[in-house]
């Protein structure tokens, strides 16, 4: 209860946990978050498959830790919808909060994870996302993820989005700590496939990405990436036709709409720059895909 006593009414950080039927791993995930050495945070759990087990677990912690709250979606929103929901709740409840991170209902975090990432964002104003190295885990194995992506020191937004389109590790970075206003400006999870990539591409226009080499996050890997499955869980009411287009085309369209047409990048950058960034993203994403396509053709 010592931890609960230190929580402020206006936390600097909000952690959004989109829950989906994992009562088996949820207590461990919640405890590793509540054990953080940095305690000025609120934790919102949005349950997309309202489940008595999940509700009772979260509520039992909420009784002892006032920073925890539970919301159940009245109707299934799907993965994209639930990730959006938890961010919107965070902004509505804590509009003054500075940083936001999505957290899962099955991973584990080192006790210094949040302290370390907050320190990065506090000391490096150009950084919009800080994320740590991770250990990938399964039920009986664990291995270090050696790849890293970092754009610190790169001033030009066009260079950052080009690098992001080619090399970013979206599955890791999307669980990083982000500047909430920048994330809001970037646009939260469009209804496209690989929406995490789309958010991160947009966010790269607003600042740098910083990788922390220390392993502070233990990421459960259940299955390999599967586009078919993603379409199914992202669009619970049926997959729209555009979702069958290549993902980089979908991302380009959403970047073009947000920044080239609606001008959401202002005052940081104007519509023309926004449209050019969408084109840069498309060009470098295609360049990234080409070797894979060639390999696929050769194999065929």
């Amino acid at each position, binding site marked *: 209860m010592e931890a609960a006593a230190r929580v402020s009414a206006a936390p600097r950080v909000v952690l959004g946990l989109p829950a989906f039927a994992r009562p088996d791993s949820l207590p461990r995930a919640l*405890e590793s978050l509540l*054990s953080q050495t940095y305690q000025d945070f609120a934790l919102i759990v949005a349950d997309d498959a309202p489940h008595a087990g999940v509700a009772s677990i979260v509520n039992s912690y909420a009784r002892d830790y006032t920073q925890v709250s539970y919301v159940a979606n009245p109707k299934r929103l799907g993965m994209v919808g639930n990730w959006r929901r938890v961010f919107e709740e965070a902004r509505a409840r804590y509009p003054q909060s500075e940083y936001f991170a999505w957290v899962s209902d099955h991973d584990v975090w*080192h*006790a210094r994870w949040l302290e370390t990432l907050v320190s990065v964002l506090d000391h490096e104003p150009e950084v919009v996302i800080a994320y740590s190295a991770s*250990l990938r885990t399964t039920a009986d*194995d*664990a*291995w270090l993820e050696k790849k890293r992506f970092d754009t610190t020191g790169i001033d030009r937004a066009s260079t950052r989005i080009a690098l992001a389109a080619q090399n970013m590790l979206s599955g890791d970075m999307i669980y990083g700590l982000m500047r909430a206003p920048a994330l809001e400006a970037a646009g939260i999870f469009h209804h496209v496939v690989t929406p995490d990539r789309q958010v991160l591409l947009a966010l790269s226009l607003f600042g740098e990405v910083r990788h922390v080499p220390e*392993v502070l996050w233990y990421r459960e890997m259940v299955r390999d990436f599967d586009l078919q499955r993603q379409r199914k869980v992202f669009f619970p009411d049926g997959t729209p036709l555009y979702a069958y287009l290549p993902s980089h085309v979908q991302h380009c369209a959403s970047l073009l709409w947000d920044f080239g047409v609606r001008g959401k990048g202002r005052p940081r950058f104007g519509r023309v720059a926004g449209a050019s960034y969408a084109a840069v993203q498309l060009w470098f994403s295609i360049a990234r895909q080409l070797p894979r396509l060639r390999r696929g053709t050769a194999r065929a």
Partner: protein
Amino acid sequence: MPASRRFGTDCLNVKAEQVRAASAAYECYQRARAEILPMTAEGRSREPELTAAERALLADVEDLWRADADSLADLRRYGKTISGVRRSNYKGERADQVRLRLDRDRLKLLEHGDPALWLDEPAVLGGFGLQSGTGLFNEDTLRFFRIVTLLNDAALLREFRSSAKRPVVWEIGGGWGGFAHYLKTLFPDLTYLITAPPTLLLLSATYLMTLFPEASVRFFHPSDAAAFCCDLNEVDFAFAPDSAVHDIDPRDVALTIDVGMLQRMNAARISAHVQRAFELGCRYMLSVCFDEGSDAESTVRPAIERCYWLHPMASRAYLDRHLLVRNGAFLFGWKRLRA
């Protein structure tokens, strides 16, 4: 100087160093003995129920109470009863077989781990092993390197490097003092607390006080239990009998470690130790069982899992790949909020 004469001089220097160490050890031994003896008198009234394995271990070390300076020169021999690592395996024909295996393991471990965390076995007080190029090493040395590498992989060692808040490391049992020496040499700015039956404390205290002659040391006094933990993090080493585990209340215990002692205890004593670490707010616990899959490990594991979540780095495949753990279990956990 001709090589043969230089070799002779080196041998003389080593001998002289060993004699000096034995003499220093005897002084440390006398002080430790005087401090620990009252614990035995107190302990008799609250004697914990020891298992046959614990009684056998203590019987092997019992003659330490009657040691003289000459026998202390070979203090390290007591290590074999604790970890099973014996000097005779590092001599003669056996040494070649051991060398083949340990050399390969050492190189692989250094490849995966941070060489800066490697520490040779001290040659004094009967230290033994194979030549590593910089000094001696044996199976205990490799085990200690594995433990420290695991702590490093789990991003714990940073807490021992920062001097803002001096952490306390609690070792259950303390063995012959080898791991305490290893960790304290790498991270001088921490307080190392050892709880064990008094006979075993005499062994580790003598070893550590000899190897760290400048260290500040505190012993538990049954008549004034409260004083033991007062400003505990200002001392380098603290020794208390395991019968007093529930009477001591150290602050800032960052890590509780057990190298093969819990596996010798009965279920009630294992639970009592783990529960105490939990009550003290100790965030991490690491227990090394020498025999994986044995009855002992199957008793230690559930006791730890009641109070600690098993750390993802403690997965079998990870340990096998990074630490080359072919037998034995490394049970590494982080504290639950609710036990």
